[in-house]
């Protein structure tokens, strides 16, 4: 092969000033990117996310150093890829584990500052200062008018567009024209909320209803020790950092809560709380069973088909091959949903056929064992072509002499397969079988799209299903049904990560061995 582009690539001999210009452009680009990222650092810090601010800061420094200094020329090639993996795989894994040690969830979603701000924003209306108002249409805007005994108070012209304004009110003797009718005032409800009117005595009033303005004050006043004092009834709210809630005087927690560290609380719940441990154990066993059976079934079917397809006397291999890998070629999310429809209890085609042939209508959706059988059937359907394709590759590496020898010894096809073929193709298959196991261990997509974990295990504290895998169970805790308990989900995820880590390492060792074996062979 030639390298045609080499001869037409003179950039090494470019004039000097071009190189200088290129450097300036490079530093400019780095500068712009760094500034952009600084904006994110600042924004994240303001939003109360110091952890992510630090990560973006590190990213920015990394870019400046790696692309700024000549010394890191080599690193420039690897930096983007490694950074992407670190930020979007490694960081999420670590962060998920970290969340397992907190009470982060739908009830404790905000930061402490935002919870305090929420309470401080609660307003009380002083009914004694309440007085009616009218909105007057003016040339290019509106005026606010508060009628008094004679005449009333009138504001300057302002734009009623929702931006907060403070209006000074002047005493006028006559009632002006152009009062906006009530039905139009209704439309400006939210915009009126941003209007503050300053009375001649210096006090501020705000809209307290559709017809009235009144003095509106914050309900809570923050004391020096962080306790919130209710200025209306004198009660207090005390922040409790151990649970991430304000407590009232009776000791009850008041929503919303904020995120705090709860130590091993979530792990304790997973491992020792009966309402969670029981379904967890059941789900874990099913997950292992599912992954093992899926691996065995797809491998068996795949290898069987590969062996048949490899047979030298068989014609039409190409056509069979294409048809047999179709289940792998169709996007999984479509075929899984197709099966969801086909297995439907009442109008699914599978039950219609079974009903016609044998007069039975199995309850795929509600019977636990049938539902599990269904997931295995669908997963085998989805997974065997992969094993078949790999098997066809590895079968070719078995020397033909071995088959001849077996035939001369009088071995039948079955005997030959188990004594000659399988022992030879199994070693290179081991790493792929391990990663297949790991994949099915976390085959969340299949469960979420096919059964959503249903049918439910009866009598559990949090919704858990008979077909739920650990992964889909966790996903459901985080994003469906049970009110988004990220902390608990994080704890379970951490346990799964440990299992996956062990599997991944085993796979890695197996890969190394396979590579070494190849090197020797």
């Amino acid at each position: 092969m030639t390298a045609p582009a080499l001869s037409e690539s003179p950039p090494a001999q470019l004039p000097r000033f071009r190189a200088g210009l290129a450097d300036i452009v490079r530093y400019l680009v780095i500068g712009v990117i760094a500034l952009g990222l600084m904006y994110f650092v600042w924004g994240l810090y303001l939003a109360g996310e110091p952890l992510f601010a630090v990560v973006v800061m590190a990213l920015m420094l990394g870019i400046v150093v790696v692309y700024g200094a000549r010394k890191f020329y080599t690193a420039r090639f690897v930096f983007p890829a490694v950074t992407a993996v670190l930020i979007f795989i490694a960081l999420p894994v670590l962060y998920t584990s970290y969340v397992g040690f907190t009470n982060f969830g739908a009830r404790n979603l905000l930061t402490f500052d935002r919870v305090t701000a929420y309470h401080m924003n609660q307003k009380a209306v002083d009914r004694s200062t309440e007085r009616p108002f009218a909105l007057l249409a003016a040339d290019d805007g509106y005026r606010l008018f508060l009628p008094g005994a004679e005449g009333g108070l009138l504001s300057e012209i302002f734009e009623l567009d929702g931006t907060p304004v403070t209006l000074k009110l002047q005493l006028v003797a006559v009632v002006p024209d152009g009062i906006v009718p009530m039905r139009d005032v209704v439309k400006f409800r939210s915009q009126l909320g941003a209007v503050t009117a300053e009375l001649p005595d210096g006090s501020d009033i705000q809209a307290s209803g559709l017809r009235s303005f009144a003095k509106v004050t914050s309900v809570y006043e923050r004391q020096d020790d962080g306790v919130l004092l209710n200025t209306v009834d004198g009660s207090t709210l005390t922040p409790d950092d151990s649970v991430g809630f304000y407590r009232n005087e009776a000791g009850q927690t008041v929503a919303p809560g904020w995120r705090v560290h709860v130590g091993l609380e979530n792990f304790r719940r997973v491992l020792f709380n009966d309402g969670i441990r029981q379904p967890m154990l059941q789900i874990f066993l099913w997950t292992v069973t599912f992954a093992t059976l899926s691996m065995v079934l797809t491998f068996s079917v795949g290898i069987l088909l590969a062996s048949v397809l490899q047979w030298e006397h068989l014609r039409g291999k190409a056509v069979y091959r294409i048809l047999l890998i179709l289940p792998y070629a169709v996007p999984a999310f479509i075929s899984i949903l197709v099966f969801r429809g086909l297995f439907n209890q009442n109008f699914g085609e599978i039950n219609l056929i079974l009903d016609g042939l044998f007069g039975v209508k199995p309850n795929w959706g509600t019977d636990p064992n049938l539902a599990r059988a269904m997931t295995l059937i669908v997963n085998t359907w989805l997974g065997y072509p992969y094993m078949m394709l790999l098997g066809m590759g590895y079968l070719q590496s078995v020397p033909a002499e071995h088959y001849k020898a077996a035939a001369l010894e009088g071995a039948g096809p079955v005997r030959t397969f188990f004594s000659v073929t399988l022992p030879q193709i199994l070693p290179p298959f081991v790493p792929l079988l391990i990663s297949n196991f790991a994949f099915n261990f976390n085959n969340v997509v299949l469960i979420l799209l096919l059964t959503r974990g249903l049918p439910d295990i009866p009598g559990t504290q949090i919704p858990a299903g008979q077909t739920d895998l650990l992964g889909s169970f966790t996903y459901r805790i985080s994003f469906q049904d049970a009110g988004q308990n990220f902390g608990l989900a994080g704890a379970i995820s951490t346990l799964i990560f440990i299992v996956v880590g062990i599997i991944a390492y085993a796979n890695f060792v197996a890969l190394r061995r396979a590579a070494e074996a190849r090197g020797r062979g």
Partner: protein
Amino acid sequence: MIVEHPRSLLWRKILAHGFLICFIALILFPFLIVLSISFRPGNFSTGDLIPRQISLEHWSLALGIPYQMPNGAVLQPPFPVMLWLWNSIKIGMIASAGILMLSMTAAYAFSRMRFKGRGFILDSLLIIQMFPAALTVIALYTIFDALGNVTPIFGVDSHWSLILSYLSAITLHIWTIKGYFDSIDPAMDKAAQIDGATPWQTFRYVFLPMSVPILAVVFVLSFIFLVTEYPAAAVLLRETDNMTLAVGARQYLYEQRYLWGDFAAAAILSGLPITLVFLLAQRYLVSGLTEGGVKG
């Protein structure tokens, strides 16, 4: 050639073909049913494999064209399928282009440069990629929720967020491209070096033009993987109009609103192009998976 008895050979051939044909019939049954359903009128109809009455209503709705029923009522498309398909293709294309750039530069460094931690990074990438993405979606959601406070472009419910998070799906591709780069004769590097080319110029003007086929394969594989990705997309995309096909298709089959016929037509329409691309690319997929994973 092994001598076999002609009679037993014939029987075996019949057996093998019979088995394969039965198996294929069983495997393809779901596809045939779905094709049939897509032409049956209504969403609950049952009937023969070859529909007695052919109706194009589901196909019309899948293409986004309102369908006029014989009784005069007009059916509106339940979901913007074509928009979803477009979203999927757009996100898949942009993210795959990004993935290709990240993985080919990294693969070049891993193949041709000697630096500290090279072996360690390569091994770590292999181990890290086994961690299930589906379980880190909480973190992914939190990250983009936080970024969304700064700018909605990288917030939840934005395509750019999804694309950014997809950029991490590069490990296998790095291994595949590296395997190809490893097979390029080192004399090429030497020649370029003697001509005064920097490593970047060697990569840009020597390696890239020689690797177009493998890069095309990686692009297609990555595209297929991203178009069919579900967990991250399901968490990050909330609005109906923002959804990708993988997320949106789920909307058809809720217990309360079961649009079996509409789903069938939409599934075929949207699944067909992806399937065809896959069938063209599949032979490379397997060699990439086995070679990439095993070459040390």
